[in-house]
Structure formats: structure tokens, C-alpha cells
């Protein structure tokens, strides 16, 4: 195959961001728009100052043209993330987070950091969360087995990051271990 080895079993972060951009977010529009049909569905009508739910890709587009304000989702707040962080550091399992939180958070913080309160604090909280979960997945490596490894509540970005490595190591382990039982 022409793909480099590391891409054969995973996708790039940008592709994941694209997939995550399909999720709906709330915005406060600054322009008026009729109910318009797009490939993924019909959105609108936009009647300021009423809030409206549209896909993230459209929201970023409008925001960059200064035609809306993005309302951050409820999990993108200091209290929620702080609570999750303490939960993450106190328990050995992964805490439950929205599946694509990393991508959505990054997109919103990139284009609409003025719409988000305490953007810097949220950025540092997200970083801490990421590192705490990474440390846990390293521990999960220790228990790596040739047959199965279950890491519940892992999020899409994290899965994508560890997938090629884990799959290859489990493959190698399968070959090293299974042989005697096959005799």
C-alpha cells in the first residue's frame, strides 16, 4: 500500500476534526437567513437574536465572517472540566467525556475564544485532562494481552493516537504466545 505504515490503521487528526464538525452547536446569529438546504440537512432559519442550532462547520464559517457568536456547549466550562479532572485524577478508570470533546474544544477555542469564558483556564484544564488520561493509557499498556484489552470511556482522538501501536504490539504478542497452545 502507498500509505505510510502508521496511517494504515488510523486516520489523521484533521480528518477526525472534520467528522466532529458535523455535530450541532448553538449560535446567536447576527444575520438573517432563510431555512437553507445543505447536503447534510436543512438548517435555519436564522433570526437574530434568537439562538439556533447548526453544524459546527457552518458555525465556524459564520464566525470567521463575524456573522454569529458561538455558544459553547455545556461541557466546555470551567466547572464541568474541573470536576472531571478531579474525577480523573482520583479514580483509576477513565471518566466519561463527550466522545469528540478534543476536536470540538479545539475548534471552538480556535475561532471563538472570545465567546468562551475563561478560555485560558479551559485550555489548561483540557491539557491536564489529556495528560492524566494519557498516563492511564500507559498503565493500560502494562496489562496488554494478546487476546483483549478493554479501555472504556476513551475518546476518539485518544483512540486514534494509540491504535496503530496497540494493534501491532498485540499482533506480535499473539504470535509469540499462541504457538505452544497450537501444538
Amino acid at each position, binding site marked *: 500500500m502507498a500509505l*505510510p*505504515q*502508521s496511517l494504515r490503521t*488510523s486516520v*489523521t*487528526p*484533521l480528518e477526525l*476534526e472534520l467528522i466532529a464538525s458535523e455535530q450541532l452547536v448553538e449560535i446567536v446569529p447576527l444575520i438573517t437567513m432563510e431555512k437553507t438546504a445543505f447536503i447534510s440537512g436543512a438548517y435555519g432559519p436564522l433570526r437574530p437574536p434568537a439562538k439556533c442550532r447548526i453544524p459546527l462547520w457552518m458555525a*465556524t*464559517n459564520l464566525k*470567521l465572517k463575524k456573522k454569529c457568536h458561538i455558544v459553547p456547549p455545556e461541557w466546555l466550562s470551567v466547572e464541568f472540566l474541573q470536576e472531571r479532572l478531579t474525577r480523573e485524577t482520583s479514580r483509576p478508570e477513565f471518566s466519561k467525556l463527550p466522545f469528540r470533546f478534543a476536536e470540538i474544544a*479545539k475548534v471552538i477555542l*480556535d*475561532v471563538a475564544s472570545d465567546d468562551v469564558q475563561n478560555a485560558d483556564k479551559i485550555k489548561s484544564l483540557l491539557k491536564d485532562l489529556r495528560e492524566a488520561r494519557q498516563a492511564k493509557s*500507559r498503565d493500560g*499498556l*502494562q496489562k*496488554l494481552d494478546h487476546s483483549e484489552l478493554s479501555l472504556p470511556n476513551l475518546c476518539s*482522538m485518544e483512540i*486514534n*493516537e*494509540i*491504535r*496503530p*501501536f496497540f494493534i*501491532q*504490539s498485540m499482533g*506480535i*504478542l499473539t*504470535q*509469540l*504466545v499462541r*504457538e*505452544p497452545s497450537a*501444538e
Partner: protein
Amino acid sequence: MDNDYFSIDAILAENQKIQCTFKVDIPDMGHLAGGSDRDIKSLTKAPIPIWLAYIMLFSDWADFTIPSPFGTRVRNALKAEPRSVKLSNLVGAGGLWYGFGKMVMDILSEEQANGISEVLTKAFKGRLLEVIDQAQHFAALGPAGGGGPSTDTAQSFREGLDGTERELFALAQESAKRMKRWHEGNDKARR
């Protein structure tokens, strides 16, 4: 590293030689033993590659001993500290220690095979964590930043990596590098 006929890893791993003792006379094959004899007499020792030894053992023309990369000395060193053994030294440059071990395991009888399989899996698991730690560390540094954590142990561990471990190292490094680039990219210009 499979029994796949076409697998390049398997072919490379099979190229290692093991010591065999021939049980029968074989005329006109003296060149295999590297000597100047014309024939191989029974009970001569000769190093032959595994892909050849496989058939000889199955047809019961030779016996063999467990080769040195899996001998007691290596096993004890691995049991003590898996990360300090330089696997690449044991099987030559770019070697495939795990692949070689798997071939040997296929030929051996039940209990010996179990023993070797245990040695291999324990060594692999022990070194795996170190591989990924170093890979993530090296993903963080830029192309010119090789001088940071190159303490001697870290560097000698990297030099001692087996071929299969090198692939894992590259995989982990690639994914870590991609993540880092994505996180730090500011796409306002791109959108």
C-alpha cells in the same frame, strides 16, 4: 514474523544459523560445514540456517541445541532487567530476535517451546513500555533537538532495539508527532 511463505520478516528471521549435529553421513555436502571435507560424517557439528535445519530435523537427519541468543545467560539477563539487554547485538545488525525465537519455538518440543515462549513474551512486555515512552519523548523534540535526554541508558536502549521493536517505535513516534502538530496548529488562516 509469520509462517507466511511470502513474509519478508519471516525470511529475514530464518536466516540465522543454529548449531546442528548430523546423525547420518551425507556425501558430497562437505561445503556446508565450511570445511574442506568432501563428505559430512555423522556426529559432526555444523552451523546451518534455520530454514534448512527445519527439514533436517523433521526428517531426523540431525539434532540441534538451543542457540546462544536464547541460552541461559541471555535468559537470566532478561529475567533480571529486560530493558538492559541489547537484542540487536544477539542477532546481528537489523536482527529479528523475536522472529528467530518464534522459529526456534516451532521446531522445539512442547515444554521447551513453552519455556521459550515465556521468555519472549516477558521480554517483549517488559520492553514495550520503555519503547513507547522514548517514542513519545522523541516526538516532542524537533528535528534538531536530539541532544536533550540522550543519557547513556536511553541511547543504548534505542541502539539495542530489535527490528520489530523499531517498527513499534516508529509507529508511536509518528502518531505522537501528528497529534502534537494538530494541537499546536492554529487553523484560522486555513479556514
